[in-house]
């Protein structure tokens, strides 16, 4: 890492950590219903929503009711996104006359946005109408984030409540998260992004003249749409001259703000946050990166505040930050060292005052190496999945770090809400392991961890691993799976493994060379996304209810302190060992082999 790379990373980390306490404290106040200043402005609006929707705000739900409300709300949301895509050709706000999206792609995208994954099998600017982007995708960006936070808050209540039957009200938690946290932050961020050049307009795409006209060979088609062949059975082409550039625009800033804050990640444009109209300047890049980790990091403080011991929150944040920093430094190093196969051709990849150097394939000049590498680990540490550089073109080790961060289960910051509840499950495993070592019933935050909680925690840890590996295995065995591969050799395997790791942990980023907009991948990855969202959230809610029902045990001499550096190390160890044992064999077949090949030639 050179001096500037280090400085940019330190600045990012510093600003992020400074914001954790104020935002975390505010969010705790919101969920406990004591954010007085905000309620004075929006409180009557909040109550009006409850009235209109028939929500009984004072009702306390058991975990089954909470889970049913959560699933039903998501199901209706997914149906709405599906319907909007299938009908967009006859609905308004479609200046580019986009046609209806195919059923399998619509299913994939509906699931993808409802589960907070935002995997994108389609190219935004060539597929979606403005109406679909706003009423479908932007809405799910908000609510899928708000429900993730709601589930986390329910889990925290499991620790704070004693002998209680309820874990809170799903509707109230969802409305408050949206109204008091996500909306105000999005509004500010969206306007800041516009000031940097992110577009926000309902106008159709803009045509501008090209200074140098270009031409390309367009394949001629027969009347039935098949490519026309000449006598030698080669496709017939005609020269097309292009004198104008059509620049895709749209209401992008409003969607991008929430896509980052809600760890959604679905881009308005195909190139996602690499597109200059989604992410035009280094400052917009900084703000977007900050927005990705802002809420997941701050929720650690919210957690500490709500369990009335902020040291607990800082300990979890310390574990997350440590893993994140180490993997980011490795990624920056790998990308900065460049591609030896290009050096052999006489390409200058050394970093200097006038160029970033390094592996610049699939990266933007304004971001260079540091900001592309940092973004790649930020977006995969959080289950965001937006990209400002093409991960498929990263060096093997540089691409392995984002992939492994997803495989760790999206608990290093993770998705808003879902990341921390995943990490709390790992904390339960960690105290259990510690308990085994000394032969004592494990406790966490005053609650005994018993067989039921451990069974549920094991489900949460094992289900995504199982589906990622089995999904990858099936895809490399069947023809429609292999047909999608873009790069030959070990890298092709990495593309598939990355896709299933991403969908199976609700991340949404891709080794985008993989042609995944096919019925096979749309359906397989759609199922992965459903499993990893709901089969985790449901056992987690079950744990919350079981904990809430227990009495609290007083702290004794034998109680393991869960706010000490020792516990932080134990927690990191648990996450890393589970992630390493499960995935190193698969990683050895992909990025590790490719790394050796790259150095060998």
């Amino acid at each position, binding site marked *: 890492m050179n001096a500037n790379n280090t400085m940019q990373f330190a*600045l990012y980390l510093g600003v992020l950590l400074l914001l954790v306490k104020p935002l975390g404290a505010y969010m705790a106040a919101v969920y406990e219903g004591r954010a007085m200043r905000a309620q004075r402005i929006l409180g009557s609006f909040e109550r009006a*929503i409850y009235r209109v*929707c*028939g929500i009984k705000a004072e009702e306390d739900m058991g975990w089954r*009711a909470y889970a049913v409300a959560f699933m039903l*709300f998501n199901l*209706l949301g997914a149906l709405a996104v599906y319907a909007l895509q299938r009908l967009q050709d006859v609905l308004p706000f479609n200046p580019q006359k986009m046609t209806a999206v195919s059923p399998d792609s619509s299913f994939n995208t509906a699931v993808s946005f409802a589960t907070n994954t935002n995997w994108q099998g389609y*190219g935004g600017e060539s597929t979606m109408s403005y109406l679909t982007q*706003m*009423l479908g995708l932007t*809405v799910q960006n*908000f609510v899928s984030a708000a429900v993730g936070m709601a589930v986390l808050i329910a889990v925290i209540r499991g620790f704070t409540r004693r002998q209680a039957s309820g874990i809170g009200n799903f*509707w109230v938690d969802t409305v408050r998260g*949206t109204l008091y946290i996500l909306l105000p932050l999005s509004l500010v961020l*969206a306007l800041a992004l*516009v000031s940097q*050049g992110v*577009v*926000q*307009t309902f106008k159709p795409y803009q045509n*501008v*003249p*090209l200074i*140098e006209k*270009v031409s390309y060979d367009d394949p001629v088609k027969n009347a039935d749409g098949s490519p026309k062949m000449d006598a030698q059975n080669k496709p017939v082409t005609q020269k097309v001259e292009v004198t104008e*550039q*059509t*620049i895709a625009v749209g*209401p992008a800033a*409003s969607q991008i*703000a929430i896509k980052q804050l809600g760890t959604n990640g679905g881009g308005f*444009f195909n*190139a996602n946050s*690499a597109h*200059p109209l989604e992410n*035009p300047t280094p*400052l917009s*890049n900084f703000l977007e990166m900050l927005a990705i980790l802002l809420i997941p990091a701050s929720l650690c403080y919210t957690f500490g505040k709500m369990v009335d011991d902020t040291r607990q929150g800082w300990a979890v944040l310390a574990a997350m930050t440590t893993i994140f920093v180490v993997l980011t430094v490795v990624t920056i190093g790998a990308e900065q060292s460049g*591609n030896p*196969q290009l050096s052999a051709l006489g*390409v*200058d990849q050394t970093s*200097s005052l006038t*160029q*970033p150097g390094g*592996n610049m394939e*699939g990266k*933007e*000049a*304004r*971001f260079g190496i540091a900001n*592309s590498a940092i973004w790649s680990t930020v977006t995969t540490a959080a289950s965001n999945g937006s990209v400002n550089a093409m991960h*498929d*073109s990263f060096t*093997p080790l540089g691409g392995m770090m984002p992939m492994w961060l997803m495989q760790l289960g999206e608990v290093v910051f993770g998705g808003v809400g879902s990341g921390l509840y995943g990490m709390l499950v790992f904390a339960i495993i960690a105290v259990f392991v510690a308990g085994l070592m000394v032969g004592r019933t494990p406790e966490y935050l005053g609650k005994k961890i018993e067989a039921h909680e451990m069974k549920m925690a094991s489900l949460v840890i094992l289900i995504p691993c199982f589906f990622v590996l089995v999904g990858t295995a099936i895809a490399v065995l069947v023809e429609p799976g292999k047909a999608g591969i873009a*790069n030959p050799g070990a*890298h092709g395997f990495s593309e598939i493994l990355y896709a299933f790791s991403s969908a199976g942990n609700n991340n949404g980023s891709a080794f985008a060379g993989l042609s995944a907009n096919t019925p096979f991948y749309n359906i397989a990855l759609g199922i992965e996304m459903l499993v990893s969202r709901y089969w985790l959230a449901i056992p987690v809610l079950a744990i919350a209810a079981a904990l809430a029902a227990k009495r609290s045990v007083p702290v004794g001499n034998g109680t393991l302190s869960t706010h000490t550096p020792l516990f932080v190390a134990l927690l990191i160890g648990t996450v890393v060992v589970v992630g390493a044992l499960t995935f190193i064999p698969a990683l050895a077949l992909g990025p590790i082999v490719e790394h050796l*090949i*790259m150095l060998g*030639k």
Partner: protein
Amino acid sequence: MLTHFRPALSLLLVMTAITGAAYPALVTGIAQGLMPNQANGSMIDSSGKPGGKVQGSRLIGQPFSDPKHFWGRPSATSPYAYNAGASSGSNQGPTNKALTDAVSDRIKALRDADPGNPAPVPVDLVTASASGLDPHISPAAAAYQVRRIARERKLDPARVAELVTAATEQRQWGVMGEPRVNVLQLNLALDGLH
């Protein structure tokens, strides 16, 4: 189940109205009122500034292959380079032969256009950008091309270098991002000389 149906459906509709309609409309209203140039794609005229007859976007690169113009990053959009209606990277992996072949071809094109230039080729000039629309190149990539432009246009290399300096943006706030040269603005300035 049924008791949850009414809140689920009506909350979805209310949220759609707030976050899907009111919120984007509010952002659009403020953005169009206060920052119309940025909100509509940062269009510039032939002087490189917003205002007159639109000549392109400051943020969207254009394809250049004439030796008289500075060349930008290679672009992987299809069916032609810098198609701003279909952004895309190459997604070629580091050990893909297609990548090394493409880089070799680009080096050859640069060398053919400027025979005898001994300098090694800066990496960003021969590798495709992530969006396929990158408006910038590194200052090193611009410096590499100064010699060619000066010869093709019969200009003093120092004069061309001055234009490059004028089109160079430094790190934002001195720290963020990388120094970079806006290729479209630079070429507009070059064309404006004559």
